[in-house]
């Protein structure tokens, strides 16, 4: 069997629909089979990542229709990096959540796993597709599954958070369709490479209107400032492995869509000012909101939004250094925030409350989980020698190359806010007076393995960033080189 990018999407999607049948044959199929599928995805992502990095972009023609006709999958170094990240994180989350769902009632495990697999398939589709309408379809797949997962716990908060997400998500899809329609009327094609080729000839007024529609739509998905009111509720009401998936899979895919459309279809210069301003506002407001939270998961959710804002700023700066920093940040954020959600969920599980007041002195009851949580906190603030340090450093370095002094000051002051509220949590965990109750739920072995693996990734990338920096530079260069993208796709045989 020849390995190609289509396996990324096809295998999880097909398995998701087969799980109800497999469940009839084998009682634990719903829990075991997704793991096998995600492990397969991980294996092919290693193979394809090497192939892409050595021989350049891998493309896949579907159903024999060569571009610009038909749908094709395009795996540039940029998308290969993110696809591998998503596959790795999806497997880590599955490993973490393998026993987590025992907490839930028997039959619901199946729905959880099906939705989770479909969400991951959709996110990989967003990252790999080369067709604008196909992008819309995959955004809808991830959106619908994500909404269902937010409303997974059948309590009042779950439904409310789900409805909020639903409202904004539907508006996003309508706006995205309008934007696609405008682009189609002007260029007569849906293939992203051909649109990029024909875009310079399009009337600039229409171009701006289409860009506004698409930015509103993708801004909702990528948690941009005035459009992100769904995100804190969604993160905090979803089951904890799903919150980790949101931070490490959904956010990555949404940001990819924003950047691909902004950089390739339109012009990077057109959106750079917008991205810097909106990203900065997103960061500022989200970190200030995180500062005033009393609920652990909501605080982590706001911090996620803040990190997305920083990534938008970095993509807005748009030179090679800043893009390197932004890619590094996407990897860091996926790994670290997933670790924080995973370990934080064990605190919540033990305390039976999401309030942070209850965290006092919990390190005596859950020493190892507390250690991992603090490691994640230090990494996300950007203390050396953890991986978060390098991404922030390179983003600031990129801003310095463009003489954006105010922006640097802004980012550093926001980091100060971030530091204050995160270290407050650490203070509670280690130094506050405890209420002595024995630990009722020790973390399971598979969850410990998953969390330890993520912590190791943070430490290793922090000490040897050179392990991935070569690949990230290559990915960033490819993102900036629009002509190469157009040429590779349109000259496909």
């Amino acid at each position, binding site marked *: 069997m020849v390995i190609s990018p289509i396996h990324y999407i096809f295998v999880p999607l097909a398995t998701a629909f087969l799980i109800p049948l497999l469940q009839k044959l084998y009682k634990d199929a719903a829990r075991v089979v997704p793991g096998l599928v995600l492990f397969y995805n991980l294996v092919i992502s290693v193979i394809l990542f090497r192939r892409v990095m050595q021989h350049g972009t891998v493309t896949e023609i579907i159903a024999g229709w060569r571009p610009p006709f038909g749908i094709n999958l395009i795996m540039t170094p940029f998308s290969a990096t993110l696809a591998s990240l998503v596959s790795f994180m999806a497997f880590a989350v599955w490993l973490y959540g393998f026993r987590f769902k025992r907490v839930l009632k028997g039959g619901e495990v199946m729905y959880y796993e099906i939705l989770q697999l479909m969400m991951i398939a959709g996110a990989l589709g967003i990252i790999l597709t080369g067709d604008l*309408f196909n992008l819309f*379809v995959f955004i*809808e797949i991830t*959106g*619908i599954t994500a*909404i*269902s997962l937010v*409303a997974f716990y*059948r*309590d*009042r*908060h779950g*439904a*409310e*958070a*789900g*409805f*909020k997400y*639903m*409202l904004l*998500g*539907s*508006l996003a*899809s*309508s706006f995205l*369709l*309008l934007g696609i*329609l405008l682009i*189609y*009327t002007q260029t007569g094609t*849906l293939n992203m490479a051909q649109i990029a080729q024909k875009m310079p000839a399009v009337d600039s007024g229409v171009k701006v209107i289409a860009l506004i529609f698409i930015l509103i739509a993708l801004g909702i998905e990528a948690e941009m400032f005035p459009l992100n009111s769904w995100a*804190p*509720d969604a993160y905090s*009401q979803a089951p904890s492995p799903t919150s980790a998936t949101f931070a490490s899979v959904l956010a990555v895919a949404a940001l990819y869509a924003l950047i691909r459309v902004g950089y390739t279809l339109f012009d990077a210069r057109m959106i750079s000012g917008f991205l810097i301003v909106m990203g900065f506002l997103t960061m500022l407001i989200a970190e200030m*909101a995180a500062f*005033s939270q009393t609920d652990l998961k909501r605080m982590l959710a706001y911090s996620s939004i803040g990190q997305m804002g920083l990534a938008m700023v970095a993509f807005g700066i748009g030179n090679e250094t800043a893009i390197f920093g932004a890619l590094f940040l996407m990897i860091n954020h996926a790994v670290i925030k997933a670790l924080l959600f995973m370990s934080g969920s064990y605190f919540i599980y033990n305390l039976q409350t999401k309030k942070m007041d209850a965290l006092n002195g919990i390190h005596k009851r859950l020493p190892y989980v507390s250690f991992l949580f603090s490691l994640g906190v230090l990494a996300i603030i950007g203390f050396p020698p953890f991986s978060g340090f390098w991404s922030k450093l390179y983003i600031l370095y990129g801003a310095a190359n463009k003489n954006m002094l105010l922006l640097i000051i802004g980012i550093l002051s926001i980091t100060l806010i971030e530091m204050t509220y995160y270290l407050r949590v650490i203070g509670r965990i280690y130094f506050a007076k405890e209420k002595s109750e024995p630990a009722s739920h020790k973390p399971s072995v598979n969850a410990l393995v998953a969390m330890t693996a993520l912590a190791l990734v943070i430490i290793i990338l922090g000490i040897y960033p050179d392990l991935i920096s070569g690949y990230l530079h290559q990915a960033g260069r490819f993102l900036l080189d629009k002509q190469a993208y157009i040429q590779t796709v349109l000259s496909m045989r």
Partner: protein
Amino acid sequence: MKEFQEIFLRYHALLQAAVYGSAVLLILIGLYAVLMKKHLVKIVIGLSIIESGVNLLFVAVGYISNHTAPIFSPGYEHAADKMVDPVPQALVLTAIVIGFATTALALSLVIRLYRHHKTANIEQLKSLRW
């Protein structure tokens, strides 16, 4: 039939304006419902009205005057240049299916919200705020 075609050709510009205008109007009506109405079901209806407006706009854009449906049927084997653009129609089919799924999901969430809160007024759902 022939008379109808003549009338159609004479008022073609008017008809086209009517189609585009009603599509835009539908989108605006839907936006009004989503933003101003308080009842959850009315908001969901508004969302699906917006979707219909966008779909109508898609079909209108793909229409070329005096062309037939894009189907290669007997008598129309070599009539590709006499057919309307098939791509928007295919897209609209997909969009309708997706819209159906989102509307069903939204209505199920509304039912669940109603069971928990005993109200369908969006202003009384206040358990999740900043």
